[in-house]
């Protein structure tokens, strides 16, 4: 059942909000343990593409193979429990429960016997441990982002989707986040798909680049290939 070559394979994916056709015939893949950057300008379709993978917003057509199975028609919560976890752009930390309780919610997405412990989480994110009993609404933006990633990791997902994880964060916090993601990659057996506009952060955290523009995938290759064509950055990422 499970493929060892491709963890996520997307083909002919189209996504719609009402009558608006947002994602057009997208096709890309992510291998086990691979880290992929999804780059594009604001409004290019990064968030819609990520939500489409979880059936968490737009109406979706096309094929999404995850871990060897077609997940079309599988409900969002079941997709999460199969190991596909999205950390959304706006973090969505529950404001009136504690940080510890927020993180523990991630356990609902765990596959049998696969969840991390809170201790594992505090080892990965030492900054979170002192915040454990603080309410969600008392966190800064950077702290919220760390807690959101920690919550996503608790269920030991196979593919973690991070939607603009450093948007709005101070440069020093961005560096810190890059270090955390590096540590996650070294210690956890999971793949990453990171939607970003921050090129240096994306470069520090990923092996490969998928470029999206007005809902179409316009480039899929290594960072070397991306750097070899300076026009890509000019055409698809310049503001």
């Amino acid at each position, binding site marked *: 059942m499970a493929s060892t070559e491709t963890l996520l394979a997307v083909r002919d994916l189209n996504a719609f909000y009402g009558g608006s056709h947002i994602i057009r015939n997208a096709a890309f893949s992510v291998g086990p343990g691979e880290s992929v950057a999804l780059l594009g300008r604001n409004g290019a379709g990064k968030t819609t593409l990520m939500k489409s993978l979880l059936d*968490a917003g737009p109406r979706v057509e096309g094929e999404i193979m995850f871990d060897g199975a077609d997940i079309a028609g599988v409900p969002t*919560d079941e997709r*999460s429990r199969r190991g596909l976890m*999205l950390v*959304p752009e706006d973090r969505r930390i529950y*404001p*009136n429960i504690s940080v510890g309780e927020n993180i523990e*919610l991630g356990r*609902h997405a765990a596959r049998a016997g696969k969840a991390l412990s809170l201790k594992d989480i505090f080892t990965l994110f030492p900054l979170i441990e002192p915040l454990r009993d603080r309410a969600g609404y008392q966190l800064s933006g950077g702290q919220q982002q760390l807690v959101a990633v920690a919550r996503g990791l608790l269920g030991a997902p196979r593919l973690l989707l991070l939607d603009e994880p450093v948007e709005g964060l101070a440069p020093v916090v961005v560096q810190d986040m890059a270090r955390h993601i590096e540590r996650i990659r070294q210690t956890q057996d999971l793949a990453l798909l990171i939607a970003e506009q921050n090129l240096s952060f994306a470069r520090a955290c990923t092996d490969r680049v998928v470029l999206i523009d007005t809902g179409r995938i316009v480039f899929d290759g290594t960072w070397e290939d991306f750097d070899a064509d300076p026009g890509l950055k000019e055409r698809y990422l310049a503001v």
Partner: protein
Amino acid sequence: MVDIGLTVFNGLAWGMATFLVAAGLTLIFGILHILNFAHGGFFMIGAYVAYSVMLAFGGTMPLWLYLVAAIAAGIAVGGMGWGVDKLILRRLRHVEDAYSLIATYALLLVCVGAVQLVWGLNYLSVMPPPALNSVVFLGDMFMPTYTIFIIACGILAFIGLEIFISHTEMGRLIRVVAADPWMAKLLGLNVRRIYLVTVVFSFALAGLAGGLLMANQSLSPELGGIFLLQAFGVVIVGGMGSIRGAFIAAILLGMIESFGTYFVPQYPGIFFLVALAVILLIKPEGIMGKEQTA
């Protein structure tokens, strides 16, 4: 002094009877954001089911059987809630509020029709069980034991709901889903099941309230509408979706109604409506506002 004591007692009785009906109504609104017009209909069915259980046991019943009949009504109406969620409410989650109002109002009409078909149009009356059919004297003030029982049931229902929502795992998950169902789904929670549990629980509360309160009034197909208006008032003044707010509002409105009737007895019932309008002018979001859940 006796008059003031009795007026407070009557206010509490009005408040707790209304809270018993309002509890399920505010719970379902707080979690599903559906204003369930049919709630009064299922409260009425609960009263009729308990009445039928009572008849099956010969028509007179001890207190324990009265409680069993009320619980049976709660279970039966909770089961109906399961069917209503599967058939109707599940389809209303992604449509505009107007559709929910129309659908639940239609369901209320179905409830009234079903009661007319099954139990007929005649007024039926139920005596409280003998253990609750007496009075307690506090000095010169006399208090019917059945009314004391209803006040105690209202307080116990509030405490039970507070414990359930604030201190149990299912209560915590219900709060999480109420606060952000989209994120809850992403975290692997089965939101549909949590909605179903909430609907069944809310309907069971309506049925239980019907069973407990059946001795307090004549049973007729109009029963659903009588309590529904009061319950809506309590839910709105308390702050839509807040159980704590509904409890406070039930006591407040009960006192206003009771003291209003004491001082101006020629206009019974009007003080509830006046208070509703005045409180909403001063605090349109209700006493507890929109209570943050999780």
